């Protein structure tokens, strides 16, 4: 005799997003690699701990805006009480090649030279935040295959998802998957169609002027006027002939950018400390194999 149950379908299905994450992990470990050598590690984050990642995304967004795009989308789902599950996928050994293929794809003649360069390279603050290259290109390729099989499994389960550098990078910055050379994040859910595309918040904040400003800076050629006058002008406004704009180029302040990155690293360091304290307070040991994933 089966117990009678009446379930809230959405709530029940939401809890089962963790099952989808498990299917993604099954799939990514079965992904056929070319090298067959990439060591893959995964971790699942749900619930309040994600709030620390949102903080990191806001901070690191000052260095790379894609972190803010991701963070704003995450928060839209999270605070609507439809939080996605974050599947972190990391590769533990792509920064070093033991293949001895000496194929040259990384730009070095031999794997040994690449390994040495990787060890010796000096990294500034921006580089610390971004990917820690150089890496073995075939292992990086395999890591793509691995991530793809996670995405594909999620797609097959008809759960919206989008592989992200941003959430992986930020989760690593606040202390998760420290033993991985690179970490990507796969948000699984919410139960909406293409949530991570056609992003709602962008639609809400973007008016035509803001869009045009951005578009004209990035693609001025579309609005360029007859160049024979020798004036670097572009069209602007309905009566553009009354409102020509001048295209100008100026040097980007790289030193200032590096200083911003240094500040971001400091700030994200404090988020990392608070994250680790939060985990400690909740008796979560990241070095243990069985990591609680209760929301």
């Amino acid at each position, binding site marked *: 005799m089966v117990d009678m149950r009446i379930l809230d379908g959405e709530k029940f299905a939401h809890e089962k997003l963790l099952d989808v994450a498990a299917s993604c992990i099954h799939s990514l470990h079965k*992904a*056929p690699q*070319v090298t067959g050598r990439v060591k893959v590690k995964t971790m699942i984050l749900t619930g309040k701990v994600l709030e620390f990642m949102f903080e990191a995304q806001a901070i690191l967004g000052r260095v790379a805006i894609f972190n803010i795009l991701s963070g704003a989308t995450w928060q839209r789902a999270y605070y609507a009480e439809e939080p996605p599950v974050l599947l972190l996928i990391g590769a533990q050994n792509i920064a070093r090649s033991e293949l*001895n*293929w*000496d*194929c*040259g*794809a*990384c*730009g*070095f*003649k031999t794997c040994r030279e690449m390994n040495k*360069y*990787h060890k010796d*390279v*000096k*990294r*500034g*603050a*921006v*580089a*610390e*935040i*971004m*990917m*820690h*290259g*150089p*890496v073995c*290109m*075939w292992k*990086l*390729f*395999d*890591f*793509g*295959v*691995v*991530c*793809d*099989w996670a*995405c*594909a499994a999620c797609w*097959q389960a008809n759960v919206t998802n*989008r*592989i992200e*550098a941003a959430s992986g990078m930020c989760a690593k910055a606040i202390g998760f998957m420290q033993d991985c050379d690179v970490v990507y994040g796969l948000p699984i859910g919410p139960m909406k169609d293409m949530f991570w595309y056609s992003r709602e918040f962008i639609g809400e904040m973007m008016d035509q002027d803001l869009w045009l400003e951005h578009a004209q800076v990035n693609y001025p050629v579309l609005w360029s006027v007859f160049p024979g006058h020798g004036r670097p002008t572009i069209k602007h406004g309905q009566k553009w002939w009354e409102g020509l704009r001048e295209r100008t180029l100026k040097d980007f302040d790289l030193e200032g950018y590096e200083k911003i*990155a240094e500040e971001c690293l400091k700030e994200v360091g404090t988020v990392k400390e608070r994250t680790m304290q939060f985990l400690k307070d909740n008796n979560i040991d990241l070095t243990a194999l069985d990591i609680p994933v209760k929301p």
Partner: protein
Amino acid sequence: MPVIRMNDWPPYSAIDQNRRKCAVEAARLMANAAMTAPNAGGVSQVEATILYGMDEQEQLARKMEELAWQVDGKLISRVFKYEAVMVRESDVVLLLGDFRAKDTPMDAECGFCSGTGNCSFLYEHRPQIHGLIDPTKRSFDTLVDGPLCGVRVHDFGYAVGSALYMANKLMIDARAFWTVGVAAQRLGYCPDSAIQVGVLVAALAKNPYVDVNTDYHVVNLQRLIDANRRLYALYRQAGGDYRVRDPGFEAEKQLRKDTTQTHQEEEE
């Protein structure tokens, strides 16, 4: 009512060709899957070539064997040789290439290539004019023309991954090989791509890409069959003129005689 008969033996016979057509159709769908795979920014960067046929596959396999001898003495030399056999054993080869990894990098300053938080390593090792890479330089002295853009290479993994995932869903055996891609590039396939892989596809009873014995380039099914043909051609010379005397017929005659005698004894 048309009848389509299929069998994987004899290879390249009409009934085997019927079977191979299905594998080619699968490869087409795999190419589609590669084109729709996730990538940074939704940027088109994958080109595909589908190659099949005894001569075409043989040419590709021979190029791989030629490359094997260029890196003689290394483990990878053997890998080229073993995988050349697999090219011959496959029904079809799906070649996938990334045409942006060398000439039009993502310019995301991610650090994958250099570790310095910018794209400096790639641009310092390529002929370029104010950040525009000169695509006319196509000569290189390594197996792969590096350095390459890490974001593109990572994306390329998704493309090949999706092709393989499609094969998995279609229950057809497939595996990606960089060695095949290196040879295919030298033969002019996927001409715009500095990095490519060959996805070998087979719809056979035995997956040709697993359970690979050592010395596979000299011990494989094709060689065993050939050994049988070679040895049997010698062994059959033990026969005389069957029209004059046939030992088998004499043995059969004796057997019939013995059987008849036995039956008679039983009846008595």
